[in-house]
């Protein structure tokens, strides 16, 4: 127990990294996932095909591989440098990998949400003279989002826990700190495990409650 208390500043710093990875990747995957969902219902076959291939690849590849690819493939091999500071560079590479992976799940959730919106909504929008993009942006996607708030919440909770895999690109988030502490304080392994697990519960539980509340609040009545 004293290890957790003694190291609380470094633990908090590590969890702060987890929060930052989650926040950036959540935002990124919502944007990219929305774009992909729009592509998957686009009237152009090439756009639909491209999005389809992307989702299939990203969704069926283990996250560890995705992150190793962004870290070693894009970062080290292709030499994509997002910052001169190594830690910052790794952080952004991890965000790219997490975003790329999570966006596929966001896309699929949104697409199932789009299927819940009655066809008449889009027909009414098109009848007013709205084009494909505006119909999607103003009418169908907002209703799709409201229908899938709860599953999006599950995806975001999964993302929070998935950030622990950022260790493969050398980002010192909570799980890395935990490993280091286990090595240093070998006599307090159980406490350390429980402490970090509690940390993740503290992060994820409010998210679940928030998304549950949002999904009830934002539900569209028909």
């Amino acid at each position, binding site marked *: 127990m004293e290890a957790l208390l003694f190291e609380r500043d470094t633990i908090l710093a590590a969890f702060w990294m987890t929060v930052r990875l989650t926040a950036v990747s959540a935002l990124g995957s919502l944007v990219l996932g929305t774009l992909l969902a729009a592509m998957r219902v686009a009237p152009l076959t090439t756009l639909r095909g491209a999005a389809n291939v992307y989702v299939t690849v990203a969704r069926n590849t283990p996250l560890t591989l995705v992150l190793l690819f962004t870290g070693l493939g894009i970062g080290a091999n292709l030499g994509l440098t997002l910052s001169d500071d190594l830690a910052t560079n790794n952080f952004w590479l991890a965000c790219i990998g997490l975003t790329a992976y999570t966006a596929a799940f966001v896309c699929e959730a949104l697409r199932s949400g789009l299927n819940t919106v*009655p066809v008449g909504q889009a*027909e*009414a929008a098109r*009848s*007013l*003279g709205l*084009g494909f993009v505006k119909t999607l942006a103003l009418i169908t996607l907002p209703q799709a989002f409201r229908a899938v708030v709860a599953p999006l919440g599950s995806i975001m909770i999964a993302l929070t826990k998935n950030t622990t895999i950022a260790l493969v690109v050398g980002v010192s988030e909570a799980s890395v700190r935990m490993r280091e502490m286990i090595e240093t304080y070998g006599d307090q392994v159980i406490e350390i495990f429980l402490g970090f697990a509690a940390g993740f519960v503290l992060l994820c539980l409010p998210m679940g409650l928030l998304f549950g509340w949002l999904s009830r609040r934002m539900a569209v*009545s028909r």
Partner: protein
Amino acid sequence: MTDADLIVLDQVNKRYGDLHVLRNVSLRVRRGEVVVIIGPSGAGKSTLCRAINRLETIDSGTITVDGTPLPEEGRALARLRAEVGMVFQSFNLFAHKTVLDNVVLGQVHVLGKPRAAAEATARALLERVGIGAQAAKFPAQLSGGQQQRVAIARALAMEPKVILFDEPTSALDPEMVNEVLDVMTSLAREGMTMVVVTHEMGFARRAADRVVFMADGEIVEQAGPETFFGSPSSQRAQSFLDKILIH
């Protein structure tokens, strides 16, 4: 075609697989005219109505609105749709928007009007169809009749050249039919060009300039309401009227 013709359908055909839903349909609608399309279920009335703003594509023939042939998908089609109002059987009000926003949306995002002006127009139109007090509610909080009147206001807000009504009262409880028909009748009196697919014979008698009778994908006959209801010339129209008018 003369300048007076707003909508011209020429030899329009459409098939769903083996089903020939529109057979060589030719129809002209003059500016300010109220054309009521009636006929048995499956006659192709709704398909015809929806084809005019290309919610249904056609296989052959031409459809012209105000001198412009219906464009393929894209910007030109969207522009044309903005000029052709549509009122659906199932209302199709935007479920996540308030009544006011339903009427404002097209004005702002299609016509590019400033929001304040669009809201003023929307409130005036809602007042006109008798639901000014419900502006802040969501569609699901309204009765069917009220929702359909909002849908009419939404179409009117675009200042369309013509409004298409696709069975506007068929999904309504009987006691709400008249409130919608009253709004439509007053529109007809004010000179709005209207194409109305309906089963309401009273409305056809009262408001139609011309009744078009369809069966099996064809226009069987068309005439003024007195002539049509008084002495239909075709056997099929006669037997249709016998079935629905004797109670």
